[in-house]
């Protein structure tokens, strides 16, 4: 018998028993959609975290200087010289503090970061309008300011803020640009901050030297090299005191995040897969009932020439068709569930084709596997005994 004919026959058998088939399928449907939704949630979360981390700049090392006794900071020139080191593409020193910004009668508490022109490329900050801080602004301690997108929203009801004057803790600054929106990250909102020249900031915040800086490696492969160079320099600078500074490696953080979320995806997917197996046992149960009910049919088929293999394949196709249909419906429900979670609960879901394919194939395999025992039982019936069955 051709495969297409056999599938058609299985289909007929299955639709002839709609309610029973549906209930049998339910286990598979729930299993497949649960696997898809679980894994999609984890993958969605992972990609959101990764995106956030990468939006802060790629191949990034961030350094915090605690210092050693009175020697508690680096000089600006010292920091800039780091960019000549092997593997290091750019260096962006930062001086930060908190302040109140005011325009007209509107005020807002924000983070002030004093930066130089390198900050833009190292931290991957693009300017929505206007310009970034230039070397001359740093050199002459210009009182210019770039506003985060939230700050603009809060303070200005009108048009383009560029050229306007805002007050930062009482002194006047000219707005030269607006930053592109970035969303929030582990360190708080990236949009509720303002940038001013680092030299201006040191005076404004009454700080000396540099206590915080970001370093961009030339490439992902060079991150470790840059890290080593940096560590060597700092150990040398602070007389081998490892507690005088701390270096955060962004790619290390990324791989930790990935590792954790991958484990989570496996775990949640695995739990959901158990329900698929339970669904498979349901299929086996119904197929066994079906074999008993159809003993006479099997006898007739054998009498007119069906071989063991023909009967075996017939029942395997039936169970695979049930689980395959269930799998398809499960994929559809899983995708719909993802959409709904996204729309109504704001949960980020991301389903890759491979998850859909794996979940579906697994359902097919479950169907075939749990179909083997009943199908084998059917194929072994003796034609005389089966024909005598009432």
């Amino acid at each position, binding site marked *: *018998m051709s495969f297409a004919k056999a599938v058609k026959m299985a289909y007929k*058998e299955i639709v002839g028993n709609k309610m029973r088939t549906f209930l049998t399928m339910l286990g598979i449907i729930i299993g497949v959609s649960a696997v898809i939704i679980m894994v999609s949630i984890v993958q969605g979360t992972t990609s959101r975290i990764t995106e956030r981390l990468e939006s802060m700049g790629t191949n990034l090392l961030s350094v915090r200087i605690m210092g050693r006794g009175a020697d508690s900071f680096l000089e600006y020139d010292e920091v800039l010289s780091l960019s000549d080191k092997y593997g290091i593409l750019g260096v962006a020193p930062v001086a930060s503090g908190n302040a109140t910004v005011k325009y007209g009668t509107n005020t807002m508490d924000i983070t002030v970061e004093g930066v130089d022109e390198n900050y833009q490329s190292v931290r991957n900050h693009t300017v929505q309008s206007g310009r970034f801080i230039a070397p001359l602004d740093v050199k002459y301690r210009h009182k210019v300011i770039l506003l985060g997108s939230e700050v603009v929203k809060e303070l200005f009801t009108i048009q383009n803020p560029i050229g306007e004057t805002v007050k930062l803790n009482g002194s006047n600054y000219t707005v030269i640009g607006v930053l592109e929106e970035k969303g929030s990250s582990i360190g708080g909102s990236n949009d509720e901050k303002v940038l001013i020249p680092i030299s201006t900031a040191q005076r404004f915040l009454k700080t000396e030297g540099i206590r915080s800086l970001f370093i961009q490696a030339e490439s992902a492969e060079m991150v470790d090299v840059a890290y080593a160079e940096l560590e060597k320099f700092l150990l040398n600078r602070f007389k081998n005191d490892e507690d005088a500074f701390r270096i955060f490696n962004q790619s290390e953080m990324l791989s930790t995040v990935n590792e954790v979320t991958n484990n989570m995806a496996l775990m949640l997917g695995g739990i959901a897969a158990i329900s698929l197996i339970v669904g498979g046992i349901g299929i086996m149960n119904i197929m066994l009932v079906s074999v008993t009910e159809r003993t006479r049919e099997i006898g007739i*088929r*054998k*009498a007119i*020439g*069906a*071989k*063991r293999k023909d009967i075996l394949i017939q029942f395997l196709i039936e169970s695979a068709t049930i689980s395959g249909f269930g799998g398809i419906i499960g994929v559809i429900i899983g995708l719909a569930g993802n959409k709904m979670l996204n729309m109504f609960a704001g949960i980020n879901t991301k389903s890759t084709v491979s998850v859909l394919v794996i979940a579906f194939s697994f359902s097919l395999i479950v169907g075939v596997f749990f179909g083997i025992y009943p199908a084998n039982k059917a194929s072994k019936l003796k034609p*005389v005994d089966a024909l005598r069955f009432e």
Partner: protein
Amino acid sequence: MLELKYVTKVYNSGSIQFKALKGISLKVDRGEFVAVMGPSGSGKSTLMNILGCLDVPTSGEYFFEGIEVSNFTDNQLAEIRNKKIGFIFQKFNLLPQMNTYENVELPLLYRRMDTAERNQRVRKALEQVGLIDWKEHKPTELSGGQQQRVAIARALAGDPHLILADEPTGNLDSKTGTEVLKIMKDLNKNGRTIVLITHDLNVAKSAKRIISIKDGLIVEERRN
């Protein structure tokens, strides 16, 4: 064509052994029309199961077209049933979820015949029993006589050498029974070998040779 030599069949149900056939020797030539008669429980169906390769003898030999088949595997027996034997049962034994056409087609599917030839054979068989206009009907939508004719068409479609009928008129009234018998006589005229099992002497009279069995043994044999 068929030859049984000292065939016995013993059924083991639990600890009880029952000898349903106690040594049957029988020869059926090509083109014969043989009726097997006997009281209930005498072993007629058991004999037919062995002749039809649905079961194998406990001892003795069975030659089907000159080949000893009593040690054949399940698959080899299935192949003989599929290609060389057509069955007609008392209870029709059609598959209820399939229509007339599909029921007749089924043995040909197991033979892996291509669609065109299958179609031609099914139509020819249905025309022979006069049911070509009923090909879309399910068995439950047919009368007993019609169902038995579908079963005959199914037996014929494979163009078998041997047709085995176990009380084919047992569930039919005398008029439709006569119709079915007429079809079988015509088949025999066309050269097919037929073995018919029956209780009914009137039915047996259609055959050219009548064999009576009792308690698993042949007790009488005569020719019409």
